[in-house]
């Protein structure tokens, strides 16, 4: 999932169906959020909904709150929140925003074929 030793964000415990830690051919997401900001909360909700409908059982999500871990925002170059990084499968992609435009999002994540 995420590199060991790094503290987890508060959204770590958000409900996402108790998926296995690193499923084969699974999707690994990291979502950077800014505290309790409205758009960050929306992004979390949207990501969860998307994973439920398109990737049941084959994803993991790490949520990083930049206000709690500003060092990570600096190190990872996260300046806009919320930012979603798809770490696996390749290629790595960055998606900025509330993740509410589903077609764009699916295209970016390469999920269209799966959805069809």
């Amino acid at each position, binding site marked *: 999932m995420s590199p060991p030793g790094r503290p987890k964000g508060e959204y770590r415990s958000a409900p996402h169906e108790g998926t296995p830690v690193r499923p084969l051919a699974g999707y690994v997401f990291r979502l*950077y*959020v*800014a*505290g309790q*900001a409205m*758009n*960050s909360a*929306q*992004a979390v909700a*949207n990501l969860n909904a998307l994973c439920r409908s398109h990737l049941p059982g084959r994803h993991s999500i790490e949520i990083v709150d*930049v*206000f709690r*871990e*500003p*060092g990570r*925002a*600096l190190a990872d*170059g*996260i*300046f*806009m*929140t*919320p*930012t979603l990084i798809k770490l696996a499968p390749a290629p790595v*992609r*960055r*998606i*900025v*925003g*509330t*993740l*509410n*435009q589903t077609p*764009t*999002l699916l295209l*970016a994540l390469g999920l269209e074929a799966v959805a069809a």
Partner: protein
Amino acid sequence: MATRRVQVEQGLSQPGRARRVRLPPAAAIAKAPTGIRGFDGISGGGVPLGRTTLLVGGPGSGKTLFALQFLVHGARDDHVPGIFVAFEESARRVVANAATFGWQLADLKKKRLAFIDAHPAPDLVQSGDFDIGGLLAALEAQMRATKARRIVFDAIDVMLALLPDEASRRRELYRLHEWLLAHEVTAVITLQSGADESQATVQQPFAFVQFMVDCVVILNHRVVQGVSHRDLRVLKYRGSGFDENASPFLIGASGLEVAIARSPGRAGVPVSGERVSSGVARLDTMLGGGYYRGASVLITGSPGTAKTTLSGIFAEAACARGERTMFVSFDSEPAEVVRNLASVGIRLDRYVKNKTLRMVSARLITGSEQTYLDRITTLAAEHDTRCLVIDPMSTWSRAGLELSAYGVAERLTDWAKAAGITLVCTRLLDEMPGPLAGGAPLHISALADTWIHLEYLVQAGERNRGLSVIKSRGTAHSNQVRELILGDAGVTLADAYTAGGEVLMGTLRWEKERAEHLATETAEASRTRRHLRLDAEAAELEEQLKSLQVQIDAKRAEMALLAHATHSGEENRSQGRSRMRELRGADSPTAGRKSGTA
């Protein structure tokens, strides 16, 4: 109360200073110097400390450089750590581009200057609304690490453009602004304006930023008649006065340099009463002893009226006195100038050789008139110049706007005065009926201390060069138009002959001179003749006097002889008589003598 007493005490110890301070220091807005030459003067010390400044400008207007220089100055000279947030170019490229200015960014980067690459990745996908929480968090982390007090956001519009609507852009900028104020960092935000406009109302989407921030500076880059012009203007500055006019600036060897027209150093410059020879003795006489040291001299005239020659002879005279001199030629190559001046007996080559004289070809300089000024002042400082010749200035105004050319002329004369440099400029006046009718477009005529005008006077089918002193501040000067003669031996001013209210020149003068010469010769001859005649007469009389003297002497000798003869005869006779009486013994000798004499 305590501070007040301190102030009063200071006031007592420094009475001159106390009068100037009207407000307690706390009320005056604190400023963060930018280290940009001239800008700190315009703004009264720099950008507002702990507040936000907005830089607005089109592409290539120098926003990034301004912002970076502000950070570098803080980090290097004031030891204030800074953060550069690059939205437009990658931080590495910003550093690479700034390498030419010798700021040792690599060195500073290690210690006090952090670069954050906030350049959005090209493959970034955007889906819905977002905010800059991540940026603020990252800045927070960076500030904690380096204790940065200065932050630059370069081209923040790049990130804002990703936001879906106007309301969210506004919201994010306010968020940033609030954050900056809360952290009391001195921030500079750069923002692009429309490509062209100088009037610099920021592009509509970001217009509100101007109202939000405490200080707005507009940078312009225009091309007028093919010549690039840069200027900047402070649009607003809360809580502080500032120079409201646009000031030209240029990107020099060490960064941005803003030209200030009214150099503050001017007031304290000592005024010299020392005279400097113009190189032409008779011109010095006309000017009551020469130019003043540190004066600005303007020589105007049509093409070929010997402006260059007159300035060249000044340079030669300066070099002969051992003063370091610089000759800036806009028209010709230095070697040509030296050769051409040698033809009238002005030998500059030896001074070029011994490095007293530095010849500069300004044809190699391109850019706005401000660039010229900067290059010339830099070169002059390098050469430690005391006398400076610029030949001609007119090329200068061709390369610029009339208005800014005036500013440049003003700055040039101010600079020369402040540096105590005697400045001789020539200026071409073509197609001008008279110097006063048209006026010199570069307006240096108003700024010059001495204005010498050269013109062709057409008289009796000839063109002759006439020289007149139109003005010369602080010196009595001749009001006469004099003829300027160029010869193998140099420049001379001819004697002036007036006939019927006209000054005679050329052949007419020559004729007049000739006639006068003939008259003088004739008079001289007749005088000599008369003298000789009188001499002869005197000699004759003297001769006569001599012969008469001889005659007188002869007569005197004769008379003496005569007297002698008479006396001795008498004696003989009386002796004979006494003897006879003795012999006769008849009378007593006394009686006999008595009777003898009776």
